[in-house]
């Protein structure tokens, strides 16, 4: 154990030497043996699996001799599970942990402990709100953009006349969901959305059944509801199905963030004519590159650091404007899907 610590320390020293590294893009030197852990919110749903694919792709490119560990908790003990995995990874002295954080700031102590052991902590998909214990956050897109896009799509669906809409979120405890909802609320202050009226926010806990009944309940409670905005891949499909079953798709539209492959049918039958998402494959790919670079000390997690991420090209570490402090790598862009491009996206 002590040996390991010393090893880590030595690496850190070595890393400190080359100052010129910052001048041009940090390049990953392939073929190193770097043990890395990819930690999704929980196992069993598609987006995280796609991210895993992307990460594996990157791993192959970088010829990392140590295979990638894809470890996830079960949904019902996601928080405790994520903390446990981070702690065990720390014990094992891995080089980098990539977290899609489902535990809010509750992960901080564990993450800090990991950093203290020289482990690089990279968050993706969902950051650590306080950014403590986190080296950098690989943001799929700018959170405030998500807010705007959600507002735009809503306005699109209600038409210029505007009207009532409601939000169907994952769980009250999902940090990124809450961030996006907050972002949307700020976006709504813009006069051009004046006619949009957010009447309610409900939660489906990322369960199809709960989301389904919640969507139904919404249309019962607000007969003149125009749009349900569901920024969760599980929720949006369930909601679409619910309204289809209610034969209400012509009155109420579903939108939000979802997977084309899952929404294909609903986009074509007009239940969910418009929704947005980014590529989770790319997100996993980029995250892996970032973490690999940090773990091999080819790059340091500080503002302005530029690096090249294989096929995805060049990225820069910047301040995260959507959080008090903290750094982020902005992936982007959004794809807004509709009947024209959804089939392509579903491929």
């Amino acid at each position, binding site marked *: *154990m002590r040996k390991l610590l010393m090893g880590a320390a030595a690496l850190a020293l070595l890393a400190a030497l080359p100052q010129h590294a910052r001048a041009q893009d940090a390049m990953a030197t392939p073929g190193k043996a770097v043990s890395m852990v990819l930690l999704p919110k*929980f*196992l069993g749903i598609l987006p995280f699996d796609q991210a895993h694919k992307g990460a594996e792709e990157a791993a192959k490119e970088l010829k990392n001799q140590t295979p990638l*560990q894809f*470890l*996830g*908790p*079960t949904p*019902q*003990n996601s*928080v*405790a*599970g994520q*903390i*446990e*995995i981070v*702690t*065990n990874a720390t*014990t*094992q*002295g891995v080089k980098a942990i990539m977290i899609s954080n489902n*535990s*809010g*700031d*509750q992960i*901080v*102590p564990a993450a800090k402990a990991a950093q203290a052991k020289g482990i690089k902590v990279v968050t993706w998909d969902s950051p650590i*709100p*306080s950014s403590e214990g986190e080296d950098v956050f690989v943001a799929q897109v700018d959170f405030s953009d998500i807010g705007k896009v959600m507002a735009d799509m809503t306005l699109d669906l209600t038409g210029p006349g505007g009207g009532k809409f409601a939000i169907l979120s994952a*769980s*009250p*405890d999902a*940090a990124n969901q*809450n961030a996006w909802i907050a972002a949307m609320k700020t976006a709504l202050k813009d006069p051009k959305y004046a006619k949009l009226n957010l009447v309610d*926010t409900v939660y489906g806990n990322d369960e199809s059944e709960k989301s389904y009944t919640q969507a139904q309940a919404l249309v019962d409670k607000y007969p003149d509801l125009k749009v349900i905005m569901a920024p969760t891949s599980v929720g949006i499909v369930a909601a679409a199905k619910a309204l289809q079953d209610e034969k209400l798709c012509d009155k109420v539209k579903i939108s939000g963030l979802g997977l084309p492959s899952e929404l294909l049918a609903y986009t074509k039958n007009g239940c969910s004519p418009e929704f947005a998402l980014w590529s989770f494959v790319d997100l996993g790919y980029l995250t892996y590159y970032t973490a690999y670079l940090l773990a091999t000390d080819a790059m340091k997690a500080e503002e302005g650091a530029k690096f090249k991420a294989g096929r995805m090209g060049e990225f820069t570490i910047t301040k995260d404007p959507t959080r008090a402090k903290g750094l982020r790598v902005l992936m982007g862009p959004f794809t807004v899907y509709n009947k024209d491009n959804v089939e392509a996206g579903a491929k």
Partner: protein
Amino acid sequence: MSVLDRLKGWETMMLALLCAIVALNSLGSPYFLSVGNIVNLFQLSIEKSIVALTMALVIIGGEIDLSVASVMGLAACVMAWTFHEGAPMPLAVLLALAAGVLAGLNNAFWIARVGLPSLAVTLAGLIGYRGVARILLEDRAIGGFPDWFNTLGQQALIGPLTAAILIFFLLFLLFAIILHGSAFGRLVYVVGSNVQAARYSGVRVGLVKSALFVGSAFVAALAGILYAARLGSVRGDMAEGFELDVVTAVLLGGVSIFGGKGNLVGVGLSLLAILNLRNGMGLADITGNTQNDVIGGLLILSVLIPNMWQDVRNKWKGRET
């Protein structure tokens, strides 16, 4: 086979199991036997372990308390909320404990006074207390507690041991003494074995049961607070779903779900076994569901195998005569 023998048999079995697990783990991972890991191994589910102690008493007393996890959440949320509303931390902690006691009194009232089945009452509690926690925090996550509080859950106090771990061992001793040494403990067994006989012997059954449920809720609240201290921030979903893990640990400890049988040594051993198992699998990069599979299977086999063994023995006896 008398109860005593059976328990003895059970403990030896659990002990053997524990040794096997430890051996496997230390072979499986070089990190397993490091001090840091041993501490983590306790630390990572210390709150469940604490609650398991009182759950054992409740089940031995012939009842069950499914609301513990929600009470943990409730206490944590009450604490966070009052703190957020500007109350000094110590006060917030006290109020959280008070909330726990209140929840316990509520359970006790319906079970001991009105005489409803504890399963039904605490099932309602499981939903209801979580609900109250939600009302308080809604979609917020409240953190930023004073450092002394966070260190309570995160820093080592004595040697490598954190406050939570120390509290666990203290409570373990305390409850072991209460259950196996004190008059109350004796009454718990009596009530768990035969409520009516207890009543006819002038035992205040209602009082014993009330004590059990209030105690259970109080300790759950304490655990909730420690959990908050360990994680440094509180959310509405705190400790959701812990109740099943806790009950599992207790049953694996040889406590009879029908009450009246079991002891804390067994529960202690089963806790150790589970913690080591989870930790060992974690280090072997086995997580989530697979861990649950193993624990679940273990739970069943721990009762099934002895039964089978007994059957075989009886068969042989049959042949001899």
